């Protein structure tokens, strides 16, 4: 039992309360706040690309391989496209993939992880085996093989492939937390009063794991961006789509680096890195929410207590 009742609130609270705490944690933690602002920026760009970039991203009408200038903020590609427009319009696809694959992977991870923890026994063993196998297989070669096999390079398929290969890491984390919850009395109480297992998982367990689920989502979204761009880079995406990964693909195709047009590789690379960083930084807030011991404690200037004062 807590020996000090100084804090009025206990560890967890409702979804609304969790939301408010997340918001506060993000605001207070400088890293997370930076990540949040970055992500917001990218979302705005994805929502209103036309407002920011006036040129068409696909029109190959400009002079090729130009450096940055007032007319072309990031220069032009080897095919004569405006890179600024490409970067701006490409944000949309990247974010869709990140959020879509992130959500789907988290959903799968939650189902597998929590069910394994809750059911225990042989089911736990089977699901763990599945998780571990996927964890051990090198993901990128697996992705390449699957993408090449599937051949359809639409965004939906890409999201599905990413989600179904990438859920295993966060499944482990979610299973661990569900295991620690498993023997909490309120779950046993639910069992004893006669609730069905599916109800217990969906209604009693998952809502208490909201912070971790959000953190898992961020991890999966980050993973999705990196691997999606990598797939597009090796040519397994739709080469006519407007995306940062395809920008890299075309840069490679046009031998931009060998020719000295570094910007054509740096720009998409920097965009990917920035968005990835945004997700990674946001994750810091969840470390704190999950583990209050990590919260930054303001250094207190200890009063010099005079030994004469008694």
């Amino acid at each position: 039992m807590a020996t000090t009742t100084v804090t009025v609130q206990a560890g967890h609270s409702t979804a609304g309360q969790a939301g408010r705490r997340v918001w506060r944690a993000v605001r207070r933690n400088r890293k997370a706040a930076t990540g949040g602002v970055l992500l917001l920026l990218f979302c705005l760009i994805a929502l209103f690309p036309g407002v920011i970039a006036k040129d068409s991203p696909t029109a190959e009408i400009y002079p090729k391989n130009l450096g940055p200038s007032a007319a072309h903020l990031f220069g032009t590609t080897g095919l004569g496209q405006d890179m600024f427009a490409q970067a701006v319009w490409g944000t949309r696809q990247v974010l869709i993939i990140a959020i879509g694959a992130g959500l789907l992977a988290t959903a799968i991870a939650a189902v597998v992880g929590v069910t394994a923890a809750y059911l225990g026994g042989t089911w736990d063993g089977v699901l763990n085996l599945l998780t571990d196998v996927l964890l051990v297989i090198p993901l990128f070669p697996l992705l390449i093989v699957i993408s090449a096999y599937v051949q359809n390079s639409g965004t939906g398929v890409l999201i599905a492939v990413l989600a179904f290969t990438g859920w295993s890491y966060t499944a482990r984390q979610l299973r661990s937390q569900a295991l620690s919850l498993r023997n909490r009395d309120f779950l046993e109480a639910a069992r004893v009063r006669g609730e069905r297992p599916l109800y217990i998982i969906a209604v009693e367990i998952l809502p208490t794991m909201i912070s971790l689920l959000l953190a898992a989502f961020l991890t999966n979204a980050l993973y999705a961006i990196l691997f999606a761009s990598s797939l597009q880079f090796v040519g397994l995406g739709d080469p006519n789509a407007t995306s940062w990964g395809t920008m890299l693909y075309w840069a490679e195709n046009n031998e931009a680096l060998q020719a000295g047009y570094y910007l054509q590789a740096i720009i998409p690379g920097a965009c990917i890195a920035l968005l990835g960083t945004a997700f990674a930084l946001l994750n810091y807030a969840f470390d704190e929410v999950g583990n209050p011991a990590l919260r930054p404690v303001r250094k207190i200037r200890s009063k010099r207590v005079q030994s004469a004062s008694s």
Partner: protein
Amino acid sequence: MPDDPGTELLRAEHLTRHFKIGGMTSRQTLHAVDDVNFSIGQREIVALAGESGSGKSTTARLLARIYKPTAGEIFYEGKPLTRLRSRRDRLRYSGQVPMVFQDPFSSMNPVFKVSHGVLRSLKLHRPELSARQRLDEAARVFEVVGLDAEMLQRFPYELSGGQRQRVGFAQALVTRPKLILADEPVSMLDVSIRIGLLNLMSKLRDEEGVSILYITHDIASARYVADRLIVMYAGQIAESGPIEEVLASPKHPYTQLLLSAVPDPRAPLGVAAEADQGEPPKVIDPAPGCRFRWRCPLAIDTCERVTPVLTELVPGHAAACHVAQTGAEVKAFS
């Protein structure tokens, strides 16, 4: 009295529960509960007392059907629990024999309002009620346990430990139970709050006609509320009987040791047993014989070879001790 089958609610016969321990290749079994026999009647509070590892919590979980018995049988209203096949039967049993848990800080889901458990219980066990009736019933049981009906709208973190435990009782009461299994319901509460909960338990027996199996390690609180006492040691029952009688003349040496160790500011603490540095044994693959023999100053030859059986020495008062069963006076610890 519980021996009258007419008023008997629940009976455990040769109840046994073993756990496999160690790794996958180990063949060791932990004998958590071994050949336990007792019964609980209507309108009575039975205290099941023992140290940790004595098997009392496991026994409660066997009665709550959280564990299945390795051997033996539990009869509720004369019918064996193994015959509860359909979901409806099992639901009916869990409504009539609900459980109250020990830890007020983890017995309620922190994400939901305090009314959640109560309303869910109502939905599952009394489906004939409408939503409005459910709310009314929830308010009614809250008043019975001494809480304001408006607390239904609060969250667990807003309630104190004592209030949360009352909610636990409310959750149990709402299904109109016959027997409540209370697993150390006051152990984690402050001393000044415990009495309130103990008084509530007495009130439930007297006014609501509910029986309670009160599991505890605190003999003094057991005496305060219970009608009968069952003392467990190392997975077996050492002694059982009407509580005043067991406390006035304990027949099993372990009961005597336990009673001598209970601190009571109004009486001097026994120091005769200061030599006793023993601990209850971990019962792994035990050989026959009395499990208390290593700590018992009265152990005789039979105690090493034959496991004592719980036998009635005086009507209603039984002990599992060879020495006591010979009729000799047992005075092991003063």
